[in-house]
């Protein structure tokens, strides 16, 4: 019999152990591949959707009538880069968009923007314009003329104006935030994966310790055995990683298609990037993780040599923990923040099982009751032996806690914020030729509207905040609203001076969004200098308001403050018509402005779509973290079960000594529930801390806005119940081994009195 055959013979006798090892590698690979795949898919999808919905500009006629092919010809002749965009609605719902790739050529100037559609002309929804024109004969259609961003107002021939063109609400910044969180999740999952793989590898070693001792006695050098073991684990990994990756992709596809559908519903085009993606990245990463996880033993002596004794090592780890915690408070750089978080996690992972073991040892020293003393000693042994899967579970629990808290906060905050921003039922765009003041008078005259006050005018544009001596000036968005009515006065404000809305209405100050307040260190009561063109105004800050989802700074003022030379970017009216129908309002406005058509946006529909996309992303995040938790729990179960087989004899001794099997099982239950409970307890502060880091550190640093930090004790309870269930399952699995009369332990370790 050759040496490899002798080594492998262990698994011939214990195929279940081999199966467990293989299953762990497959599951761990599946988990990480799933998360990785989803992250890259989500990134690709969001990139696509962003380029698809990025706000572009189109040309419209100042007289309000729709553009035609004649307009296209005229604009081209004037030397403008325009492209026709013909939307044809299909009878069974949905739409196709005809575009002209030839005309779009000028959009792709070097350094300019890319072609206005992301994909190919495959009917989903883009087709060649001739095809769309064919369809348009039978169906309703709408022609727009997109114009390159390089053109400004002055380039247009008379009778035309530039208006924004977008096919849906922009989600760019929110998407980034979501992706950042997915990335953080991916790193954490990779860490958990490594822990799982390592714990399984160590388990295999422990189970075969006798065989190794025997081989050593037969004169086989340790080094050779170790080399063979590495080869063995690599072979096993090579066999298991591929099915793992396949499963991971399958999982990601299942979860991701829902995400894709939501995106599709939102933007009317298949944006989910599908099943592209490489196999190489997960393959190489997993092999590397497995190699590192299994070879960590060879690194450890070097590490230990550097660290000195066990005690000094513990102190050092504690120092790392404290340093990491301090760093997360102080650093203002995202990379350092991630490093600090990693420090805290590594240190917490090393310390947690030790803490449980030491506490249990300490308790046992003070127990008068010998059964309790014995139980606490066993707990200490368990905590040490199952350290790795325990830490994996702790991390997974902390992650679930943080993600749940984050997602729940996100959900409620965005819901509220979206509702605030889309408080009015409709936006009516003010055509460039039209005079908004006329419309205001008309609106004020409508009895229904003047009673409810549910309308206002919105002017958007840009302004500048001049910098100090060595600061640069800052460009900010201007958001002018008037009259200030119930549509906005219900907004939540972070901070405010007395009667902020009233003073805003009287033009006595500005409100700034959180991003700007953070970046410029602006507080309520302070005076800011705002430049509209060349004219400068000193205005007191009345309030700071939340503005999630984008990093841009913004000021909110009353239109009366704006000087005549202010360049209006965009004007609209926000109206909740109440018992008046929106048609009545638009008809009235058409009459006032003497135009034939108006662009009206239905805010309720937008709100619905935006909520749908958020719901889906949140669901996805939740699913991934829950999956991680389940896997970590399974790992602990499996390891607990195998470890217990080596220790079942001692629990059986309790039965020999006259305890009934039920009593022995009760001891087991108390033991395993204490263990899983302890780890859940230790996961709690880590999870709350991680929530805090995500909400109060990472988000503000990355995006300039922070979410309210909320804790959800109900999750804690749920997690507590879950940890109880894990403990009970371990006890249940173990207690089955109490039934059969176990033979005395035969391994060298147990003969020497067993581990303590």
């Amino acid at each position: 019999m050759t040496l490899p055959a002798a080594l492998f013979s262990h698994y011939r006798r214990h195929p279940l152990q081999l199966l467990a090892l293989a299953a762990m590698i497959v599951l761990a690979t599946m988990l990480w591949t799933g998360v990785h795949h989803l992250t890259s898919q989500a990134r690709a999808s969001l990139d696509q959707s962003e380029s698809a919905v990025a706000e572009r500009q189109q040309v419209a006629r100042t007289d309000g009538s729709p553009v035609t092919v004649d307009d296209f010809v005229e604009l081209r002749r004037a030397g403008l880069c325009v492209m026709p965009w013909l939307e044809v609605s299909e009878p069974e719902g949905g739409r196709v968009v005809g575009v002209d790739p030839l005309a779009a050529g000028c959009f792709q100037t070097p350094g300019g923007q890319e072609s206005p559609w992301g994909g190919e002309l495959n009917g989903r929804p883009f087709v060649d314009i001739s095809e769309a024109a064919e369809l348009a004969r039978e169906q309703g259609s709408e022609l727009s003329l997109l114009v390159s961003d390089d053109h400004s107002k002055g380039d247009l021939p008379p009778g035309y104006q530039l208006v924004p063109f977008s096919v849906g609400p922009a989600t760019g910044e929110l998407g980034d935030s979501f992706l950042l969180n997915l990335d953080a999740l991916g790193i954490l999952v990779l860490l958990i994966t490594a822990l799982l793989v390592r714990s399984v590898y160590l388990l295999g070693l422990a189970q075969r310790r006798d065989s190794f001792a025997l081989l050593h006695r037969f004169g086989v050098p340790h080094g050779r055995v170790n080399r063979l073991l590495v080869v063995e684990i690599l072979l096993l990994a090579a066999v298991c990683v591929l099915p793992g990756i396949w499963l991971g992709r399958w999982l990601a596809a299942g979860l991701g298609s829902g995400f894709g559908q939501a995106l599709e519903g939102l933007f009317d085009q298949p944006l989910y990037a599908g099943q592209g993606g490489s196999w190489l990245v997960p393959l190489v990463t997993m092999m590397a993780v497995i190699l590192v996880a299994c070879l960590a033993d060879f690194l450890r002596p070097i590490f230990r040599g550097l660290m000195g004794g066990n005690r000094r090592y513990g102190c050092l780890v504690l120092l790392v923990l404290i340093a990491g915690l301090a760093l997360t408070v102080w650093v203002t750089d995202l990379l350092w923040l991630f490093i600090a978080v990693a420090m805290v996690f590594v240190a917490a992972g090393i310390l947690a099982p030790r803490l449980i073991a030491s506490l249990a040892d300490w308790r046992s020293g003070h127990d008068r009751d010998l059964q309790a003393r014995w139980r606490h000693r066993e707990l200490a042994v368990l905590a040490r032996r199952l350290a790795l899967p325990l830490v994996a579970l702790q991390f997974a629990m902390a992650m679930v806690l943080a993600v749940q808290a984050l997602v729940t906060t996100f959900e409620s905050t965005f819901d509220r914020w979206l509702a605030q921003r889309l408080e009015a039922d409709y936006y009516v765009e003010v055509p460039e030729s039209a005079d908004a003041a006329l419309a205001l008078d008309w609106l004020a005259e409508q009895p229904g509207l003047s009673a409810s006050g549910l309308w206002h005018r919105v002017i958007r544009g840009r302004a500048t905040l001049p910098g100090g001596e060595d600061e640069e000036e800052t460009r900010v968005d201007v958001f002018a609203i008037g009259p200030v009515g119930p549509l906005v006065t219900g907004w939540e404000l972070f901070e405010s001076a007395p009667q902020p809305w009233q003073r805003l209405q009287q033009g006595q100050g500005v409100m700034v969004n959180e991003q700007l307040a953070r970046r410029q260190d602006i507080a309520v009561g302070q005076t800011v200098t705002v430049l509209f063109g060349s004219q400068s105004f000193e205005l007191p800050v009345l309030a700071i308001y939340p503005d999630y989802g984008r990093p841009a700074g913004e000021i909110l003022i009353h239109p009366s403050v704006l000087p005549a030379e202010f360049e209006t970017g965009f004007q609209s009216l926000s109206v909740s018509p109440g018992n008046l129908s929106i048609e009545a309002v638009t008809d009235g406005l058409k009459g006032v402005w003497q135009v034939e058509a108006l662009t009206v946006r239905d805010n309720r529909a937008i709100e619905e779509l935006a909520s749908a996309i958020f719901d889906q992303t949140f669901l996805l995040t939740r699913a991934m973290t829950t999956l991680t938790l389940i896997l970590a729990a399974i790992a602990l179960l499996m390891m607990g079960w195998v470890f217990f087989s080596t220790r079942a004899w001692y629990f059986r001794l309790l039965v020999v000594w006259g305890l009934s099997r039920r009593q022995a099982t009760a001891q087991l239950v108390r033991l395993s529930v204490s263990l899983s409970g302890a780890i859940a307890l230790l996961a709690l502060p880590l999870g709350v801390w991680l929530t805090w880091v995500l909400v109060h550190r990472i988000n503000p640093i990355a995006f300039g806005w922070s979410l309210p930090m909320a804790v959800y004790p109900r999750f804690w309870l749920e997690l507590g119940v879950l940890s109880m269930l894990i403990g009970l399952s371990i006890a249940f699995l173990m207690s089955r081994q109490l039934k059969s009369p176990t033979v005395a332990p035969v391994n060298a370790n147990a003969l020497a009195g067993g581990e303590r």
Partner: protein
Amino acid sequence: MVDSLLSARGLNKQFRSGDEPVPVLTDFSLQLGAGESLALTGRSGSGKSTLLNILCGLEKPDSGTVQVLGETFDARSTEAASKADARWGGLRRQQIGVVFQEANLMPALSLLDNVRFRARLAGQSEDDCRDWLERLGIGELADRFPDQVSGGQRQRASLAMVFAMKPALILADEPTGSLDRHTAEAVIGQLFELQARHDCGLILATHDPELATRCSQHLDLGHLPQT
């Protein structure tokens, strides 16, 4: 018989290996009085451990009756298994001391704590536990853990444990099987001495024919059960 401590009648036990039945005990009987000792010998695999397990209720015979310390257990009785288990549990807890060849101690407890744990389970005082360790010559090792002492010292601690529970019957399955001859001699000497002094019954499974002669009865289970 009035002063019979233990009597077993008509015990049958067979295991299965695959589809083949492996008879281990066939119509087996034995008797043991208080203060008596009985040696069980026989080839490896002849059923010594199986018999000891049956005599303390850790294993069930297919048929037959065991009467021990005033309790009767019939394999064919209609008594619920859990009830019989509970009665056996009570006996093992307080009156029947069991010693195996090895691993009789909880690895996570010190020698002294092991003895005290056992004494408490038996409802005995913990006060003389240290005495027992001293009497067996390992008093100074009381606070060490099982993995910190030698095999012989561990077996002595196991004996201290059994005596601390003040048993009426001791079942010892090759208690010195893993010890060298000299140490084994000393441990067995102490076992016999204490058994005689406390007047309890002793059944000893052993491979040592010389040891067997020191017991008041000797039963040879013979060769491997025929398959």
